C-alpha cells in the first residue's frame, strides 16, 4: 500500500451544487462519518450568480450560498487540489500532488466545463474567456475590462446571453454571434426566441443568428482583435466570451471501466456501473422523466437534488431518483421567462429530436406576453411562459408534466395565469398514486376525495 494513502469513508470530488448538498446530507444522517472533499476551488459560490457578479450587481460575498466556514462546521476534511485519476480496484483517488485518498464510497460531483468551439486562434489569443469559474473566468474578465470596449459573445445559450447582458451593463459594445437559426435554441421555440432577440436588440445588444465563426483574429499571444465568420465578415472586438454549452468533466475517469456515454451513467439510485461509486450533477447522465432515457440536464436544481439522493443511497438509505427534466427561469432586461420540458428539442451533444409534441396551446393577452403549452397524447411535455403575469404559479404546470397527468379535461384553464391548485385538486386526487409527497397526500385527504 502507498504509505501516503489517507483513509476516509466518504470522498466527494467537487464542492459545488451537487457535492455540497451531498456532504450536508451525509453529515445530517451520519454525525460521525469521515467526509473528505476534493476540490480545485476553495470557495463555495453560486455559479448561476456569476453573471450578476460580472454585471456588478452582486459582490463576491453575495455569491456565497454557504457560510465561509462551511467545511469546519460540517467537520469536512478538504483537499484543495485536483483529482487526476481513479483506481477503482484499490478504491483510491489520485491527486495532483502525487498523493492518493482512499474511499469506501465515492461521489463524483465534478460538474462540467464550457465547450470551446474549434475556431482558429481560440486558444492562442488573449481576452478569450468562458464563464464558469469565479477566479479563472469571472475575475479574469473583470481584470480584462479596462482594456475592452467591444465584446463578442460566441453562443446564444443561457450563459452566453447572461454574459452579454452583463457586459452591456458594464458599458461595452456587445454583439452576440449564434450558430443556430435562433438564440436560446435549447430553451425556447423559435417564436419565443424571437421575442428575446428583439429585447436584446432594443437594449443595444444585437444578436446575429446563423453566424459561424471560423477564426479569432490577432497576433499570437496577444489580445484578440476580431472574430471572422465563415462568410468572411469580421466583427472587431477586444474581448470574447464563449457561451456555447458545457461538457461534463470526465478527465478523472479516463483510465477506468466506469460506464460512460456523454456523461457518467448512473442508475435510479445514482450509482455508477461500479458499486461504491456514485455521481451527481452536471457530470451524471441520469434518468430524464420526459425522455425516458438517461440524459444530462445541466441545471442547478437537478444537481442539488441528485447530490442529496446520491448521499442517501451512499448511506444505505435506498432512495429512488425520479428523474430530471429540462427547466429554467431567467430574466433578460426585466422580462421573465420560465420554460421547461421537451417542446424545443433541438439536436445537442446527446442527439435529440424535434417535434415531440402533437398539440400546442397558446394564450397571448398582449404582444410579447404569453403562455404556451405543448402536449403529447394529452399530457404536458413542455411549456414556455413569458412575462410577469404568465409565469405565476408555473410550478403547477411543471408538476402536472412531471407526473404525466392526463390534462384533456383542463386544457383551456391551463392557459390562464389565474390557474390555481384548488382547481386542479380533483385531477390530482384522480391521479393520487402519482402524488406521493406528504403534502399532496394531506391535501387530498383534507378534501375527502
Amino acid at each position, binding site marked *: 500500500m502507498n504509505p501516503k494513502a489517507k483513509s476516509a469513508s466518504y470522498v466527494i470530488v467537487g464542492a459545488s451544487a451537487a457535492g455540497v448538498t451531498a456532504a450536508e446530507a451525509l453529515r445530517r444522517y451520519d454525525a460521525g462519518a469521515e467526509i473528505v472533499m476534493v476540490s480545485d476551488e476553495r470557495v463555495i459560490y453560486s455559479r448561476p450568480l456569476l453573471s450578476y457578479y460580472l454585471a456588478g450587481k452582486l459582490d463576491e460575498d453575495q455569491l456565497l450560498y454557504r457560510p465561509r466556514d462551511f467545511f469546519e462546521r460540517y467537520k469536512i476534511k478538504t483537499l484543495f487540489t485536483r483529482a487526476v485519476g481513479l483506481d477503482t480496484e484499490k478504491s483510491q483517488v489520485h491527486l495532483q500532488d502525487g498523493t492518493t485518498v482512499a474511499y469506501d464510497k465515492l461521489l463524483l460531483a465534478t460538474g462540467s466545463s464550457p465547450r470551446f468551439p474549434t475556431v482558429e486562434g481560440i486558444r492562442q489569443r488573449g481576452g478569450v474567456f468562458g464563464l464558469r469559474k469565479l477566479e479563472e473566468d469571472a475575475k479574469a474578465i473583470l481584470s480584462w475590462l479596462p482594456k475592452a470596449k467591444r465584446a463578442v459573445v460566441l453562443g446564444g445559450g443561457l450563459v452566453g446571453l447572461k454574459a452579454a447582458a452583463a457586459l452591456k451593463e458594464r458599458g461595452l459594445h456587445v454583439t452576440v454571434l449564434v450558430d443556430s437559426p435562433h438564440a436560446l435554441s435549447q430553451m425556447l421555440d423559435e417564436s419565443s426566441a424571437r421575442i428575446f432577440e428583439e429585447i436584446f436588440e432594443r437594449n443595444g445588444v444585437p444578436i446575429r443568428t446563423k453566424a459561424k465563426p471560423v477564426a479569432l483574429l490577432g497576433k499570437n499571444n496577444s489580445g484578440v482583435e476580431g472574430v471572422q465568420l465563415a462568410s468572411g465578415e469580421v466583427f472587431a472586438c477586444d474581448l470574447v466570451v464563449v457561451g456555447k454549452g458545457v461538457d461534463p468533466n470526465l478527465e478523472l475517469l479516463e483510465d477506468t471501466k466506469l460506464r460512460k456515454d456523454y456523461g457518467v451513467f448512473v442508475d435510479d439510485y445514482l450509482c455508477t456501473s461500479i458499486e461504491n461509486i456514485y455521481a451527481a450533477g452536471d457530470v451524471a447522465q441520469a434518468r430524464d422523466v420526459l425522455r425516458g432515457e438517461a440524459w444530462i440536464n445541466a441545471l442547478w436544481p437537478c444537481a442539488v437534488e441528485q447530490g442529496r439522493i446520491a448521499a442517501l443511497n451512499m448511506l444505505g438509505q435506498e432512495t429512488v431518483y425520479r428523474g430530471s427534466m429540462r427547466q429554467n*427561469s431567467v*430574466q433578460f432586461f426585466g422580462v421573465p421567462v420560465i420554460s421547461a420540458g421537451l417542446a424545443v428539442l433541438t439536436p445537442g451533444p446527446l442527439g435529440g429530436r424535434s417535434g415531440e409534441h402533437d398539440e400546442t396551446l397558446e394564450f397571448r393577452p398582449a404582444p410579447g406576453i404569453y403562455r404556451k403549452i405543448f402536449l403529447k397524447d394529452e399530457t404536458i411535455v413542455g411549456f414556455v411562459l413569458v412575462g*410577469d403575469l404568465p409565469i405565476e404559479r408555473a410550478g403547477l404546470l411543471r408538476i402536472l408534466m412531471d407526473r404525466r397527468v392526463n390534462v384533456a379535461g383542463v386544457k383551456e384553464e391551463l392557459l390562464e395565469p389565474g390557474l390555481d391548485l384548488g382547481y386542479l385538486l380533483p385531477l390530482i386526487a384522480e391521479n393520487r398514486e402519482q402524488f406521493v409527497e406528504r403534502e399532496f397526500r394531506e391535501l387530498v385527504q383534507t378534501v*375527502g376525495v
Partner: protein
Amino acid sequence: MERLFCDPRRCVACRACEIACAVEHTSSKELFAAVLNGDLGPPRRRVQRLGANPFRVAIGGVALSLGCHHCDPAPCVDACITSAMHKVNGETVCDLDKCVGCWMCVMSCPYGAITPRVKALKCDLCPDRKERRESARYACVESCPTDALFAGRFEDFESVLARPIERPWEVVR
C-alpha cells in the same frame, strides 16, 4: 413543526385571510393605513375554488385557503441559486435580502404558493406574531370567521376533520 391547514367544509371563500395576510405584511399592520400608504402587497395565501364547479359536491366543500406547505425536502430550496430560500427547523424561509428574483422557486413550487413581486413572497408564518398565542398567533387564522383555518400538526387537524360540523355553511349547495 406547526403548520396551517384549511377545512374545506368550513371555507366559504370570503377571502378574509387574504386581506389579513396582506395587512400583516405591511409596516403599519392596519388595513386603512396600508391602503392609504399604498403599502398593501399580495397576500401570501390564496383562497382557491375546488375544481371546475365552485360548489362541487363530490369534493365535500367549496373552497380552500392555501399557502406554503413547508415541504421537506422543499423543491424551492433545491432550486434557489442564492440560498435565500432555506430551511429553519422544518420551516421554509425566504431571506428577502438574498433573493435576486430569478423565479427558480416559482418554477419549482408544485403548489403555486410563491408570488413573484421583485422578491419571492410566500407564507412566513407571521414572524411578527411570535409572541401571540392561540388563534392570534397567525393573522389568517385570527381573521377566519368560520374557523376553517387551523394551526397545528396534521394529526391534530385530522381529528378536526373527523368531527362532523354543525354550522350552517356545511350545507352543500
